[in-house]
């Protein structure tokens, strides 16, 4: 499956799960901010991706939880600590953290979850399952 095919399939999966227009699903669209996803939608998205791509997505792999739970070692005064950044990098190797790294506001973590991030995650999963 090519990168483009994966993206198209991810896009149609999100259209179905979030009941949004295809035109709204752009690579840099954020799931929560732009596409209106709520926490329960993540469960639905995970299920649909598993079904569409024939992959297994363990709990917390695509949408990690620990960083969001206010652990003081990971988040202090609303900012992600060095340890928190390490945690993010290890749990979300598929995420582009370069922009987030600049301000580290925990409230902006949800902006990391874009359409493109999901496509990259799926790409990684498919590559691993092929090997």
């Amino acid at each position, binding site marked *: 499956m090519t990168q483009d095919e994966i993206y198209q399939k991810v896009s149609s999966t999100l259209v179905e*799960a979030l009941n949004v227009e295809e035109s709204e699903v752009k690579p840099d669209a954020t799931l929560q901010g732009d596409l209106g996803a709520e926490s329960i939608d993540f469960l*639905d998205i*995970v*299920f649909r991706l598993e079904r569409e791509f024939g992959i297994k997505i363990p*709990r917390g792999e695509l949408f990690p939880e620990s960083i969001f739970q206010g652990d003081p070692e990971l988040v202090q005064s609303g900012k992600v600590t060095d340890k928190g950044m390490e945690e993010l990098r290890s749990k979300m190797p598929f995420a582009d953290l370069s922009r987030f790294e600049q301000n580290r506001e925990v409230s902006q973590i949800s902006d990391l979850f874009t359409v493109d991030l999901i496509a990259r995650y799926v790409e990684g999963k498919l590559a691993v399952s092929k090997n």
Partner: protein
Amino acid sequence: MRWIWIDRFTEFRRGEFARSVKQLSLAEDVFTAHFPEYPVMPASLLLEGLAQTGGILVGEINDFKEKVVLAKITKAKFLREALAGDEIAFETTVLYVRPEGAAVRGRILANGEALGEAEITFAHLDQARSQQAFGDRNFVFTGELRSLLESIRK
């Protein structure tokens, strides 16, 4: 008004499929206002009956230890109305069960004919909101809902 919108289960295959029925009597409270001289069952209550059927199917998988709550109706489609006098059947099939929640695909029939369909997502409350303390008591599966299932097992 009692908030149970199924009368009894007619089929129950653990973790897989459940079918329940509801006889719509003209004596239902809901028909007093919805509508005078035109007793039509609100589609939202039909979805509630479907969700109760699917919720018990999902809850039983973990022996009712999880608090299974309706979280999202991904899609729903109705083909016709349900009127007083109709026998409604709710059929639900498990799509998936995960630690965080589950989903079912449902069909609603009136007197054996297709009336509607929906996909419903359930959350496991403790799992999905682990920081909130809901206590040990399972307020979702109270005696009334569970006894419905017992009736088919006797």
